């Protein structure tokens, strides 16, 4: 059940990225190129996603458990600090250089793009480097806390 929900969510998420144009790095760069020939399309991807997800989060707040029976694991972390901002800046810098963020890069990898494979490989190295050497001594609260099982 949980595995099926995971797979279907990923599949629909990926189709959404493809339909919306997020998996096309040129379109992403055209969206970020506010000072050039700007393509605002991807703002509507975010808008459409939020319009559908927002009622779901409102519903989730009133539920104690998910359909799978697991407890709702909504983030409790509200801390705004240098790591939050610095992480966002580093991520944005990389996003603007290649036109890939993590989800679209995986979808592009699935479509057989060698460039996306290079990006994803480097991204996994970057994640590991952070977790091994740059993470806080006490691990920060994860975005999606996982209940012990």
């Amino acid at each position, binding site marked *: 059940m949980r595995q099926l929900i995971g*797979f279907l969510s990923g599949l629909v998420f990926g189709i959404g990225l493809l339909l919306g144009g997020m998996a096309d790095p040129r379109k992403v760069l055209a969206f970020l190129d506010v000072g050039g020939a700007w393509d605002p399309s991807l703002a509507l991807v975010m808008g459409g996603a939020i319009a559908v997800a927002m009622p779901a989060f409102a519903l989730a707040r009133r539920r104690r458990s998910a*359909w799978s029976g697991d407890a709702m694991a909504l983030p409790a972390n509200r801390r705004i600090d240098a790591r939050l901002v610095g992480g966002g800046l580093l991520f944005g810098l990389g996003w603007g250089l290649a036109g890939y963020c993590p989800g679209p890069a995986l979808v592009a990898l699935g479509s057989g793009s060698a460039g996306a494979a290079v990006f994803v490989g480097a991204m996994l190295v970057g994640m590991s480097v952070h977790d091994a050497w740059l993470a806080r001594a006490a691990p920060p609260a994860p975005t999606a806390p996982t209940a012990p099982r």
Partner: protein
Amino acid sequence: MNVDWQAFTPWTALGGGALIGLATALYLLGDGRIAGISGIVGAPLRALLRGRLSEIDRPQPWFIAGLLAAPWLWRLCGGAAPGLPAVSTAMLVGAGLLVGVGVRMGNGCTSGHGVCGLSRLSLRSLVNVLAFMAAGVASVSVVRHLLS
């Protein structure tokens, strides 16, 4: 500001966004989890590197499998393959490293802080989104308009 109306695709963008929202809602209501890709990839990766396979949250690898399988279903439905990256291999490596470090340090990316965080009206996520949007715009501006 100079909008490229030829490239503007409002309907597919809204439709794609709605599907992303739907997937986010399914993962949230179905499994009680935030559909944040950097966490979905980062958490199992960390468990893998520490040799603690039992700590991997089982739906996460399946979510990744769904993302990887999406282009196959997309093509089956007649969709065109996504465009290829427009930059050099060295640039892809540098960008990937920055994205990898950045999303783990900031604890989320376009999906976790963007779609989920903004949908939850989280101020913390809004701050992260403003940071990565500003850096993304600055990065493209420097590469396209200052260096070339």
